[in-house]
């Protein structure tokens, strides 16, 4: 059995909740007034859609397209979580639309508006989460209790260990970075947390992190696919999750989703979404973010400024977070996906991927076996991507205070300019991406994977990536001494980058090179059937799965380290 990283008991004892009782939580307030809130979401979404599709014909066309797509989805890609009455609903809508298109405007008498209302309302209800304090508390305790047990049972190999509290989640999950600032900002404004997304586990993990930092539950957008699994659905619902269905790309749905997030943020509900949209298939840190939900933060802030022409309204803070693992269970399937899309005909899939029951197995493996996780909390940003200080003041590059309201002003007034805000969202997204890279914590396992893959690829300069990945793994070997030299060089560069504030690294990266390399080798993709990196009998570095090695290697792409190999 491989040596697992020695984990020290974590020193921090935990954080006091920043708000006394659950009734004070914005998330709870929202779900208490669920009906009114959804009515508002529906109404404002409709207004927005009417603005985008002003004429009757445009609206009917849009609704027809929506109905068509929805029926298509039902035929092609139906999920367990989808409500039973969906086919009936959409076929009725379709029929009514057909009837409607034969009528003139007077005859049809605003029928299309009713249909729009019906559709949007349905979507709003579907998206909305319902936060119940009792099940939140229950879920929280269950997670704490069982994970704690499993952890101890796995760590201390005695039966009795299941009932001990020697290790807790806190020992396993290291939270580093601007925790104090996050807590301070959550008290005075609305926090929008945007973590990187590598694994399905992220949702649960981040939920736990938020709780353990003493923050009230966040409203968060979770992929509807996760709700397919009953047990997940239970936890998600009780943790305040709202549902994001990536199959639905129609305008009414997207506008409703954005409005839901927008209004929730305006009402002060701390929110969380994965701006990468989906798990990183390649193992790369997200370079491109989905701008849809991110733009709701910008819009919400602008609206708050508009509605409070004189005073200072609630401020919205964007907090980037990176999650670091030694091991991502889905890695083989993810990278397979990625290579298929990327390589098209140059890449041949070798195996079928398996079903979603993986998730539960994954959780189990994850929490019962070693391999620590770190969560880096980034500094607070305003919606323009400016850093803020502990009091929430936006600062320019020279540390001077500035007023973000002025970004939204034309001729002395706060104005609405969609195109401008799209551009702002893009700027914010670029800033978040650069923060991801900056607060990323390099693990020994990332580094060995990076160095090994680059060194191997260097040996076949004539092959493109896909040609290289098709090489039989048996032919690939790096002499240990050679590996060590390069490893040292790259590690030095990481130190260097850290000094310049461009990346962080885990403390376990320091120390004697041989030990650090062993740590890396032992932990990289530790529970995969085929290990991405091993030492062979001669003590040289070999791989059993080049694709997965590529995946873990990608974590360190984007720092220009390749140039040094």
């Amino acid at each position, binding site marked *: 059995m491989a040596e697992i990283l020695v984990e020290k008991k974590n020193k921090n004892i935990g954080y006091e909740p920043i708000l006394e009782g659950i009734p004070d939580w914005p998330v709870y307030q929202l779900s208490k007034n669920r009906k009114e809130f959804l009515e508002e979401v529906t109404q404002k979404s409709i207004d927005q859609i009417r603005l985008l599709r002003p004429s009757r014909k445009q609206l009917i066309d849009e609704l027809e397209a929506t109905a068509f797509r929805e029926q298509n989805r039902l035929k092609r890609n139906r999920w367990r979580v989808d409500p039973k009455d969906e086919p009936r609903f959409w076929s009725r809508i379709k029929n009514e639309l057909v009837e409607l298109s034969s009528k003139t405007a007077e005859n049809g008498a605003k029928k299309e508006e009713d249909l729009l209302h019906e559709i949007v309302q349905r979507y709003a209800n579907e998206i909305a989460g319902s936060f119940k304090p009792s099940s939140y508390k229950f879920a929280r305790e269950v997670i704490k209790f069982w994970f704690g047990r499993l952890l101890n049972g796995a760590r201390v190999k005695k039966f009795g260990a299941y009932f001990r509290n020697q290790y807790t989640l806190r020992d396993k999950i290291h939270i580093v970075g601007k925790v104090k600032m996050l807590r301070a900002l959550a008290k005075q404004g609305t926090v929008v947390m945007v973590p990187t997304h590598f694994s399905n586990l992220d949702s649960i993990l981040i939920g736990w992190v938020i709780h353990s930092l003493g923050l009230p539950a966040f409203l968060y957008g979770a992929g509807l696919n996760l709700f397919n699994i009953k047990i997940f659905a239970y936890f998600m619902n009780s943790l305040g999750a709202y549902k994001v269905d990536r199959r639905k790309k129609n305008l009414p749905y997207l506008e409703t989703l954005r409005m839901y997030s927008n209004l929730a943020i305006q009402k002060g509900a701390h929110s969380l979404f994965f701006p990468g949209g989906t798990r990183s298939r390649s193992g790369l840190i997200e370079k491109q973010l989905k701008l849809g939900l991110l733009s709701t933060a910008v819009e919400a802030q602008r609206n708050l400024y508009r509605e409070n022409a004189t005073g200072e309204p609630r401020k919205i803070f964007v907090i980037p977070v990176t999650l670091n693992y030694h091991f991502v269970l889905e890695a083989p399937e993810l990278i397979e996906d990625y290579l298929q899309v990327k390589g098209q005909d140059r890449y041949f899939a070798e195996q079928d991927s398996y079903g979603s029951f993986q998730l539960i197995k994954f959780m189990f493996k994850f929490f019962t076996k070693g391999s620590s996780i770190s969560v880096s909390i980034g500094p607070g940003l305003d919606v323009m991507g400016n850093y803020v200080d502990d009091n929430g003041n936006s600062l320019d590059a020279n540390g001077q205070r500035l007023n973000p309201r*002025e*970004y939204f002003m034309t001729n002395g007034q706060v104005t609405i300019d969609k195109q*401008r805000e799209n551009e702002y969202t893009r*700027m914010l997204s670029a800033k978040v991406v650069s923060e991801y890279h900056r607060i990323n914590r390099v693990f020994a396992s990332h580094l060995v994977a990076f160095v090994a893959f680059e060194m191997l690829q260097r040996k076949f300069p004539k092959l493109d990536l896909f040609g290289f990945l098709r090489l039989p793994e048996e032919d690939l070997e790096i002499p240990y001494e050679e590996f060590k030299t390069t490893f040292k060089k790259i590690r030095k560069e990481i130190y260097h980058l850290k000094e310049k504030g461009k990346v962080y690294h885990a403390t376990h990266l320091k120390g004697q090179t041989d030990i650090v390399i062993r740590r890396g080798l032992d932990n990289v993709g530790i529970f995969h059937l085929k290990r991405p990196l091993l030492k062979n009998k001669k003590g040289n570095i070999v791989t059993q799965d080049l694709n997965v090695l590529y995946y873990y290697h990608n974590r360190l792409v984007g720092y220009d380290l390749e140039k040094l190999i």
Partner: protein
Amino acid sequence: MTLRSSSDKPVGVIGAGNFGSVIANILARNRKVLLYARDEAVIKRILDKRENRGHKMSKNVLPTGDMEYLANQCDVIFPIVPSAHFRDMMRKLSPYLHPYHILIHGTKGFDIKLPKGETIETVKTLNRQQVKTMSEVIREESVVVRVGCLAGPNLAKELSQRQPGATVVASHFQEVIQTGKRLLRNDRFQVYENHDLVGVEIAGVLKNIIAIASGALSGLGYGENAKGLLISRGAVEMVYLGRVLGGDTRTFLGVAGIGDLVTTCNSPMSRNFTVGYRLAKGEKLKNILKDMEEVAEGVNTIRIAKKFSDYYKVRPLITDTLYKVLFEGMTVQDALDYLMRYPLNVDINLLSTT
């Protein structure tokens, strides 16, 4: 849209050089203009004689030496100062700027950041972190995000004579483009839009290289065949260099690309053209530069483009050869012979590879 209460706010222009003065005059047809000049004598001359650099200045143009006043009075500012001073100017202006300001610059040149102890002569290569366009300088040095630029075939002298002409206003923001249009457009001056801000800036800078070459051809006494060859090959070279720097190929085919290139290459009035012309006549670069009232941006651009392409391992033939002429003592005639004998003769295939 055009008539707002604050539309009586003046527009700012920073830099009372040749182009700055012309732009101030064009703006003054629609609005009051505050024109910043560093030099007290210039301010006084404009106030007293209504004249600057040979241009008759509109009565709507009010010269000032006070940046703070200008920034407080104007929401929209056009900085038009030589690239070598641009960053310094921005640093001085920055404390008075707010996020509501709109800046549309009219400077064609690069800003370079050199490692400590190096000069532009000694530094071996330059990468994209060290070479910045003016809009990037504005973003780095101030809180202003609504940034745009002016580019295109804008020969100051023709513009001041009210000959027909056009400019491109480029920005990521529609708001900036519309503002620029509203302020600049008149019956003799057409304004085109472009969203590829960096591409437009780069095209405006790189064309100065080709302008020097064009002057050199002219100085050697060659005619239109040679010029046609130069302009078309020069355009290709601009595209290649421009792509490395982050511009969009299409931009180089537009008014700010080909349009500006053809104009500059055919204009014996332009400074860059003059540099090439006099070099071909056998004069030394040092002496030529000494005679010039304003900077010929092209000379610096060649130096930067050469070191930049060395870093990214692209081979811009015309630029490289001009570099040898300007800084390594090659004669213009030798340079031309070298180019004519160069064995690469694939015409163009860049459009298919975008």
